[in-house]
């Protein structure tokens, strides 16, 4: 049976959202020092989801959003990961960045047309796979109460 993970999306601009993102971001930096690529990829993905949430809720501007994406790419570039791992993580970040734009433009188009639009981020198969590989408890430790499993 497939496990469904739903990340809650708060519309409120709160300091705690920013803090929890920054915590994830610094966790990503630390994770890049390890050699466990699965752990790095999971944390990186969660960081990206959180970043998207801050961006789509208007807490972070487009410039801040792109700035963080750029920093994540820089972190990976300067990590000591082997070439194949570095390439995989780069692709994860780059593909996610593209999806965010897609989600944003669809949201704006639907809003403009007066159609109901969902801001929720669908978690792709990669993340579901990663969460499955780690077990939900570890995700709970990372995200605290901000998701429902």
């Amino acid at each position, binding site marked *: 049976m497939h496990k469904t993970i739903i990340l809650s999306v708060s519309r409120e601009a709160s300091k705690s959202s920013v803090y929890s993102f920054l915590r994830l971001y610094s966790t990503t930096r630390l994770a890049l020092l390890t050699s466990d690529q699965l752990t790095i990829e999971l944390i990186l993905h969660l960081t990206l989801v959180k970043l998207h949430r801050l961006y789509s809720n208007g807490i972070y501007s487009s410039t801040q959003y*792109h700035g963080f994406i750029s920093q994540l790419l820089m972190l990976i570039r300067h990590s000591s990961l082997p070439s194949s791992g570095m*390439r995989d993580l780069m692709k994860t970040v780059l593909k996610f960045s*593209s999806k965010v734009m897609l989600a944003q433009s669809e949201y704006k188009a639907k809003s403009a047309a007066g159609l109901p639009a969902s801001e929720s981020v669908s978690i792709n198969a990669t993340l579901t796979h990663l969460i499955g590989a780690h077990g939900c408890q570890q995700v709970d430790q990372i995200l605290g109460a901000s998701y429902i499993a």
Partner: protein
Amino acid sequence: MLTIITTTRDNTDELGRTFTSLVEQDTRSFEWLIYDGSRHTPIDELNHFADTATGHGISASVIHALDTSIYAAMQNSIKYAKGEWCLFLNCGDMLCHKSTIAHISKHIQPSVDMIYGGNIYIDVDHTVHYHPGSSPEKIKQVLETGETPYYYHMVCQQSIAYRLSLLRSLPLYPADLRLAADHNHFLRTIHSTPNVLFTNMPISIYFGGGSSHRYILNTYYEWMYNNIAFIGENAKLHDLCDHYLDLISSQIQE
């Protein structure tokens, strides 16, 4: 026969440029399919272009459909093409020369599934860039070594003629990319089939100011993704990343 497919959406001003380019062709052995996704433009305005083209001896028609993205529109449009081959000359794009279609048609043969050439890009500041393109072997070699990024000589979709069966078996858009799915498709194709022919003749002229220009950072992300996805195992990954990261940083700082 070659079907020229023009996807358009609420942009009849620039459609005139594409229309003129087709009327000037020295052959009529092609079809023009206008695939319209307009939300506001009356269909009559599109029909006027098709009717006028018909008056010039071109077999032309209009299909109106709403799709989720430009790549979805391009992929769905091929269902309506009558030719065995197509070239996406989207709204505002032009062919380089009056003999371009005749030149492409001359190269169509059973053993070829894709024909491509160079392009001329006119930037928003009106500077003109000539991209001559290069052979599939050369492009694969560049990707394999990573010595230079696949950036300066990218092949644009306006300069590619596809056998329709190729697009049916290897669709344009399920690559999760919004702005560079065509480049991804091109690279997938040259890696998956030898039936690709490069011609030295420049094929299309296209203009800056579109989505790639408006979402330049996302464009860089997708170009970088494509480059990394196809780079060789032992390529210079750090150098390649630095090239794109410099581009991204320069845009963020502006």
